[in-house]
């Protein structure tokens, strides 16, 4: 019986190794609690798309049912945090058949890969999608370098 326990251990160790390797695919873009990397199962809501558009960084967050006052977007240095609360919208006097959308508070934070201009950040909320446009600081924008003939 002890040998078969050992087998399980080894199997789990291999899975841990695989998971650690995969976590390293997204290094440092997401900080969880106390700076440790976030586990895959935890804290993936709201879902976020993050693009580099040359002159700016673009964030899109999928947050249906939330209005501007339920969401807070904070930028501290190179650290962006999107947080808020999805309140339960159960109407009064109704019995409940099914709830798949739970009330919860959320917070996701990112360290930005480049410097951004803090004063020109635009955030819009449309159809439940939050769009954040963060223009890059001048020094961080891509620059064409001319090649001089020798």
């Amino acid at each position, binding site marked *: 019986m002890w040998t078969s326990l050992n087998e399980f251990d080894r199997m789990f160790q291999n899975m841990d190794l695989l998971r650690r390797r995969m976590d390293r695919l*997204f290094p440092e*873009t997401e900080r969880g609690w106390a700076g440790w990397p976030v586990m895959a199962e935890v804290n*993936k809501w709201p*879902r*976020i*798309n*993050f*693009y*580099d*558009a*040359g002159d700016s960084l*673009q964030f*899109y967050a*999928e*947050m*249906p*049912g*939330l*209005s501007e006052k339920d969401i807070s977007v904070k930028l501290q240095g190179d650290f962006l945090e999107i947080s808020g609360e999805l309140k339960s*919208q*159960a*109407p009064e*006097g*109704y*019995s*409940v*058949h*099914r*709830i*798949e*959308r739970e009330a919860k508070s959320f917070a996701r934070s990112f360290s930005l*890969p480049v410097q951004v201009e803090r004063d020109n950040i635009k955030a819009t*909320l*449309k*159809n*439940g*999608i939050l*769009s954040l446009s963060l223009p890059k600081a001048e020094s961080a924008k891509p620059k064409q370098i001319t090649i001089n003939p020798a």
Partner: protein
Amino acid sequence: MDATKDIARKKDISQSPELTQQGPTLTPVVDIYENNDEILLFADLAGVSKEDLTINVENDTLRLTGNRNLDAPGTAYFEEFCGCNFHREFSLPQGIDVERVNAELKDGLLKLHMPKSAALKPRQIEIKAE
């Protein structure tokens, strides 16, 4: 972005609209509530606008079909949600008043009111003493 009006109440036997988008089909999450007068459904449909959503009530089946397109400006660091189609079907009890079904789509949240016809409302049955 308020959109309080009847969206689509088709009672004909047409098929779901042809899917011209590529992309996966997702099932939107819903909450369903009920009181004496109506059944109320909330559905999470982020990124879907009124024009891209079809609600079909026919033969005791409720069908929600929609799609959304997303901007993808530049290279992605990561993408956790995508442009996609939505589809979900429910069986309805008999006795929903289809004429009075109405829906509101705001901030990516669909609120669908399905009033019950008089036959479905709870009725106190009087017991006559003999």
